[in-house]
């Protein structure tokens, strides 16, 4: 499909009825492309790393530094853009790990029932009964606070939501005639699960993944804020807010721009997710 055809499709028509979700889509496309092109479009790409320039420290926003500079003279705009990179990368990888990890047991529990269901669903209940931030904190306290470990910690507590989702969907879908029809013509279990049931879960999965991007970004920022996430000098939005918060209210630009960046990311994915939910007509 060529790009122009998308705007002429029925799906786009339905989606574009909701101006807020179009706004969400614009935000998401905006910061995803900015993050993607970070090394080329930021004014001071080297400021994303361990860079020190005390002469220019704590400068308020100006033409040279739109978002001002931090306590050791790094350009905040450049760091925020690179911070998006980290956040998106993290959220994306967390979902890549958590979604299959959650989807497969969910399918199995929903389809086979019995002992499978009991064991799988009770394990997910255990995970879901612990508040996510607490569990992630525990895991991070246990491991070294690095980007990889943050991904592991967040994935470890994210998959049960997908198990839940898929379990419920599978239980509904397995009584559909086309699933029975596939069973009748002798389709093996894997075929029924992966080719008959799973494709019908994609709309719900896609919507939930979009909404979860924002939750994961927020959680990662929360971990960063508490000092258990990605460590400096890596420009992580949460830790940047935490660092800057010490200088409020005089050096307000230190925490405010990174905080706004988190807000925009979360807002963008949430609005887009809402739009997808209406477009794909799913219940999440």
């Amino acid at each position: 499909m060529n790009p122009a055809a998308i705007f002429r499709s029925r799906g786009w028509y339905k989606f574009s009825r909701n101006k807020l979700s179009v706004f969400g889509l614009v935000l998401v496309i905006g910061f995803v492309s900015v993050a993607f092109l970070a090394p080329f479009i930021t004014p001071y790409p080297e400021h994303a790393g361990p860079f020190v320039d005390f002469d220019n420290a704590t400068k308020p926003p100006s033409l040279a530094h739109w978002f001002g500079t931090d306590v050791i003279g790094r350009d905040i705009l450049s760091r925020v853009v690179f911070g998006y990179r980290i956040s998106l990368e993290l959220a994306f990888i967390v979902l890549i790990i958590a979604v299959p990890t959650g989807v497969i047991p969910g399918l199995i529990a929903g389809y086979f029932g019995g002992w499978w269901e009991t064991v799988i669903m009770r394990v997910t209940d255990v995970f879901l009964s612990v508040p996510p931030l607490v569990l992630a904190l525990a895991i991070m306290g246990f491991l070294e606070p690095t980007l990889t470990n943050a991904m592991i910690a967040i994935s470890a507590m994210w998959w049960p939501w997908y198990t839940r989702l898929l379990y419920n969907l599978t239980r509904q879908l397995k009584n559909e005639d086309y699933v029975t029809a596939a069973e009748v013509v002798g389709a093996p279990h894997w075929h029924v699960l992966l080719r008959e049931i799973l494709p019908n879960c994609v709309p719900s999965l896609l919507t939930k993944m979009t909404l979860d991007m924002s939750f994961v970004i927020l959680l990662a920022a929360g971990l960063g804020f508490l000092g258990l996430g990605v460590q400096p000098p890596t420009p992580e939005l949460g830790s940047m807010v935490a660092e800057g918060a010490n200088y409020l209210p005089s050096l307000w630009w230190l925490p405010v721009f990174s905080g706004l960046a988190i807000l925009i990311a979360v807002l963008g994915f949430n609005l887009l997710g809402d739009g997808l939910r209406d477009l794909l007509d799913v219940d999440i």
Partner: protein
Amino acid sequence: MTDVPLLQVEDLNLKFHLFEGVSHVLDGVEMQVRKGERVALVGESGCGKSVFVRTVLGLLNRRNVEVSGEIRYHGEDLFGLSDGQRRDLRGRKITMIFQDPVAALNPVFTIADQMTEVIRRGNPKCRSAEALDIARQALLQVSIDEPDRVLKSYPFQLSGGMNQRVIITMALINRPELVLADEPGTSLDVTVQEQTLRLMTRLTQDAGAAVLLIAHNLGVVREFAERVYVMYAGTIVEEGTVEEVFRDPLHPYTKALFAAVPRLTGGAMPRAIEGMVPDYTRAPEGCRFHPRCPHATERCKVPPPTLTMGPGRRVKCILHEGQAVEAVHG
């Protein structure tokens, strides 16, 4: 042809264990389908027809289900087969046609995807291009004039009648020996249902497949089937050729079914059967029809004998004890 029937069901019992108690849904069902034969199973809604079909296919393996009896296919007991063997048998030799053709197709795949899938399952060596060609030919045979458009479509883009034809084509494409048809087309309008039946008759005759048609419409049964089983509350109350049963129904339930059909000729209004299909957790003792039967006596409270009235002609009612050739007491 051998003497062994294609499908032989003997003393099939099925119970659901529920909160309300044990629901005895199928009670000693006996049935035979021979090779290439068209058999109908008729009864009112809730009499256990669909449960019976699902049991034969082995689709009811939930925790609260208890099945006993025998289902033999080519003389081989289906309950003795492993899961995998049963699946294999289902795919190649037994298929099913569902009530609602739109629901029986997966909404996220095109007709082409779903048809080639089935064709290749029947013949794994078949390449996709070949399978697509087979699908196209098969659709042309069921008078679909633009097979390529249909193949490219998703189920919800086609009409109910079109989907029904696709479903029938898919069911018969691997040349099964036995087709179980659960009221095909009942969800469609009457003219399409009519077409569906005619199409099914033609295709199954061409393929030499036996059909077990589940129906509640006696007109459909008369038109389609050679032999008929009448089911009431999970038991077969009468069996015979369509001609025999329609000319001279023996069981009071069968008679009541005929009396309930509206007619164009003759003055009498159709008569409804009083009461409802019983609650299976507290099924009536003895003959399950006796609470609704105009001829019921005290003797109906013990299980009725199965009376053989002639070759292939049986009835489960004490009214005909005098004329019976043979009586088997249950």
